[in-house]
Structure formats: structure tokens, C-alpha cells
């Protein structure tokens, strides 16, 4: 990549410490660039996890450089073996490394989105099920996963960007059974974009439009009970508040006014989570309901408990979605 580092040489000498070092540095630079390119997608994660882009980039790629008992970078070695055509030139080595890192970044972002948002996770499961059921394919393009028709081998043409995707008409998202066909047809017949659906953007869009995909029914044979998302949130919230009452109120750590306040705060958080995402900085949720609580009071008295309850709430929503 005209970086002063010969990628082919480093990939061919993975046991050499100097090659390893160069490979790790180049991989990190690629990862960071992809992460910055996808900054909008990860901004909330960075804030909520209190991570820097550098740390997130490293978290995404560090497993590539784990050594096995023979001190080999086994994941990279396997990826090289699987790559087609075989890597026998510097140019091919450059493209291989670029794709490998891009794919790692995408996987890691997706994992974090899953962890931070049970609704995202649930819809993703359903979409993955539909992709498999319909024999569709996934393809990585510039660090993003796209769903492509079964007859396609790779993406050709210009992929749809976020703004355009979010402007697609609502009705093409309304049918679960024909969801992909409808979007593919729209992209093919009504736009000049490649016939490829950005997976994460699709999940966010479905979450926003409150599609029937939210309903826990039919998507898999295991899910027959029909419940709407509001009842899931209510139920998870109740379990979380019960926990708060048992562990904090009854033990005298907080009083009843605190309970009412935290109940309102958690309710707002839960519905924000459903409607697109929790605002960074949970303090804001407090001020809305009690402007007298200063940042200092929040930090000293409420922060740890609220963060714990928020974590429990997410777990409970995920659990309700599984039930």
C-alpha cells in the first residue's frame, strides 16, 4: 500500500517478530480509518462505553493477533488459506488485508450494537433467519455488510448511502415475507443504486418504522406468542423496578421519592432504547424530572445505581425478547 511495509512479505513471515510488529501496526491504521469512516454508527457506543476510537479499533482487531500454542497467528493463517485467488502478489496481499480488517471492524461494531441494544439484537436475529431461509447472501463492502440476492456473487455499482436508504418509502418495509424482494425490486427499478441492502441500516429502519418484524410471531417456529414491543418494555421495566425496590428501597438505601424518580427515568430510557437509542449521559434523564438534582448530586448519589439498573433493564429486555 506504498506504506514502506511490504504486506506480502509480512504475511509470508508471520513468525518473524519484526513482520508481526509491522503487520499489527498497519492493521491498526486500517482499522482506525474504517472506524472513523463509520463514526456515526459507533458514536453512541464510544460515548456509552467510554471508549476512544483508538481503543475500539484495537478491540476489533486484537483477536486476529492471538497466538496458538505453537505461537502462530492461526486466524490470519486460516484467512490467507481461504482467500481466493491465492495471495501471490503484493497487490493481492494489500487488498486481502484491507478486506480482513474491514470485516473485523464490521463484526465488532455489530457485536457492540447487539450488546447495547436488545431490540437491535432481536431484529438482527430475525433478519438473519430470513436471509438464511431465502438463501440470500451477505457481502462486505467498505466495512459494511450488505444483503444481496442469491444469484449475485459480489456487489457491483454504487451502494445506497444512509440518507438515501432512510428516504426509501415505508411501504416496502411493511411485509415481512416479501421484505427483501420489495427492497431489491425498489433498488433495481426505482434507483440507480446497486441491488444491495445495508444490513445495519435495515435493522435501524425496521426499528424506527415499528415494523411487523417487531412482533414476536412466525419469524421462527419457536415464537408463536404474539406480543408487541410496548408490553415487552413494560414487563422488563417492572422486573427491573422490582429489583430496585428489593435491593435498594427496602434496605433503606433510597427513599420512596427516589423510587418514583428512578421509575420515571428508567421508563424514559426504555422507550428511547426502543425508539432509536438512549441519549449519551444518563444525567439528562434525571434533570427532566427533577431540575434540582445537580451533576454533583447525580454523580455522588445516583450514577452508579442508575448505570447498574440500566444494565439490568437491557438484560431483562433481552430476556423478555427470548421468552
Amino acid at each position, binding site marked *: 500500500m506504498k506504506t514502506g511495509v511490504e504486506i506480502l512479505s509480512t504475511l509470508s513471515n508471520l513468525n518473524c517478530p519484526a513482520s508481526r510488529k509491522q503487520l499489527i501496526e498497519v492493521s491498526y*491504521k486500517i482499522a482506525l480509518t474504517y472506524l472513523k469512516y463509520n463514526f456515526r454508527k459507533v458514536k453512541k457506543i464510544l460515548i456509552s462505553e467510554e471508549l476512544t476510537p483508538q481503543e475500539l479499533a484495537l478491540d476489533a482487531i486484537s483477536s486476529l*493477533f492471538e497466538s496458538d500454542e505453537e505461537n502462530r497467528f492461526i486466524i490470519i493463517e486460516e484467512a490467507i488459506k481461504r482467500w481466493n485467488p491465492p495471495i501471490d502478489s503484493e497487490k493481492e496481499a494489500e487488498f486481502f488485508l484491507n478486506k480482513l480488517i474491514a470485516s473485523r471492524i464490521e463484526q465488532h461494531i455489530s457485536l457492540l450494537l447487539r450488546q447495547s441494544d436488545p431490540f437491535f439484537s432481536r431484529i438482527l436475529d430475525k433478519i438473519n433467519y430470513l436471509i438464511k431461509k431465502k438463501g440470500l447472501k451477505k457481502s462486505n463492502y467498505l466495512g459494511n455488510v450488505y444483503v444481496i440476492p442469491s444469484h449475485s456473487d*459480489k456487489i457491483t455499482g454504487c451502494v445506497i448511502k444512509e440518507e438515501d436508504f432512510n428516504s426509501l418509502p415505508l411501504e416496502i418495509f411493511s411485509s415481512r415475507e416479501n421484505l427483501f424482494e420489495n427492497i431489491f425490486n425498489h433498488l433495481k427499478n426505482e434507483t440507480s443504486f446497486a441491488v444491495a441492502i445495508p444490513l445495519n441500516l435495515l435493522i435501524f429502519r425496521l426499528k424506527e418504522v415499528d415494523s411487523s418484524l417487531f412482533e414476536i410471531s412466525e419469524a421462527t417456529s419457536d415464537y408463536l406468542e404474539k406480543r408487541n414491543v410496548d408490553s415487552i418494555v413494560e414487563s422488563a421495566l417492572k422486573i427491573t423496578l422490582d429489583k430496585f425496590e428489593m435491593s435498594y428501597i427496602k434496605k433503606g438505601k433510597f427513599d420512596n421519592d427516589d423510587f418514583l424518580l428512578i421509575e420515571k427515568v428508567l421508563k424514559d430510557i426504555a422507550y428511547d432504547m426502543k425508539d432509536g437509542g438512549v441519549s449519551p449521559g444518563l444525567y439528562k434523564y434525571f434533570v427532566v424530572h427533577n431540575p434540582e438534582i445537580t451533576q454533583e448530586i447525580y454523580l455522588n448519589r445516583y450514577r452508579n445505581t442508575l448505570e447498574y439498573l440500566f444494565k439490568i433493564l437491557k438484560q431483562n429486555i433481552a430476556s423478555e425478547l427470548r421468552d
Partner: protein
Amino acid sequence: MKIDITEQDLFNYVFSPDLLSPEVAEFLNNSKEFSEDIEFFKELKNSLRQELSYQEKKLLAKKIPSYQLNEIIELYPVQTPAKKKVNGLILAAASEEQKKPVVSSRTYYDNNKAYIIKVINYENSCKIFVFSTLYEIIQNFDLIITPQNLKYHIDDNSVPLELDFNVVPESITLEFNLVQQS
């Protein structure tokens, strides 16, 4: 004419234009359709040319056990005692204005005081002297000036590093046992 452009075409357009067919190259030269994606690969190419900061290297070493950090020494400026105000010195109105000295110097130590660096700024230039308190000759190392992240390779410390501008580093890093890059 409609040409099917792939991600690899865009990558090659920036990294290996010689691999592109003339038709694809011409199409991309004249098309704005892929400008955002091409811009991304250009940014990627630029980022690969940039040096990692010492902080980033430390982070790599912390998160990836296979990444061995070079021996790094950080030096910080010695705190100079505040100048005492001289009481009673009153200049007459007609006195010549005191000029700032043209030469200024700053000294940097590491925690173990194994190294001393003297930064001397002249009017428009600078000399940076690196000393070992063990009186050894220091060879083949990089000197990094922060926060600007200016990196200079030094073969040995028998001659100072000369710059044609002034620097007032917040800290200076010495990096040894460098991996030779091709």
C-alpha cells in the same frame, strides 16, 4: 456505457491504478458516482503513511501481547525556579526597552535521569543535544517531539539535531531498537 464497478476496482484506483483496465480508469476519472468511496480509500492510503504516536504504540502493546514495544524513554522539562522579583529596580522613562534574549534553552530529564536533552532555540533555528548520564554514545534511535509528534532518526548523539525552526516540546521521547522498515 455502463460499467460494473466493484470494491476492488475502487481500491485499485487509489492503491494500484496500473491494475485497472483503461475503460474502468477512464470511467472512474469522469464519474462522480463513486467519489465518496474513492475519497475513503485516499484517506486510508494517507493514514498508512502516518507514523503512530507513542501513545498508540503503548496502547497496541497493552492490548496485543504479540506486539513488543520498543524501548521507550520519555523526558520531561525540568521545572525552573520562578525568577525572583528584584525590588527597587526602577527604570527611567527614557531607558532602553529590555529585549527578550535571542537564545533560550530548556532541559529535559527522564525519570531515572539516565538521559538529558538540551533544547536550545536560537532566533529562527534550534539545536537539540542528547546526552547520556553514563557518558555512553547513544546510537540508532528516534527522537520524537510532542505534542507535534515530530519524529527524527538519529544515528548517534555525537552531533546535535538541528532544526530550522523553534520548538518548545512538552515532552521528548527516545525510541530504541527500531524495526528496520523496507
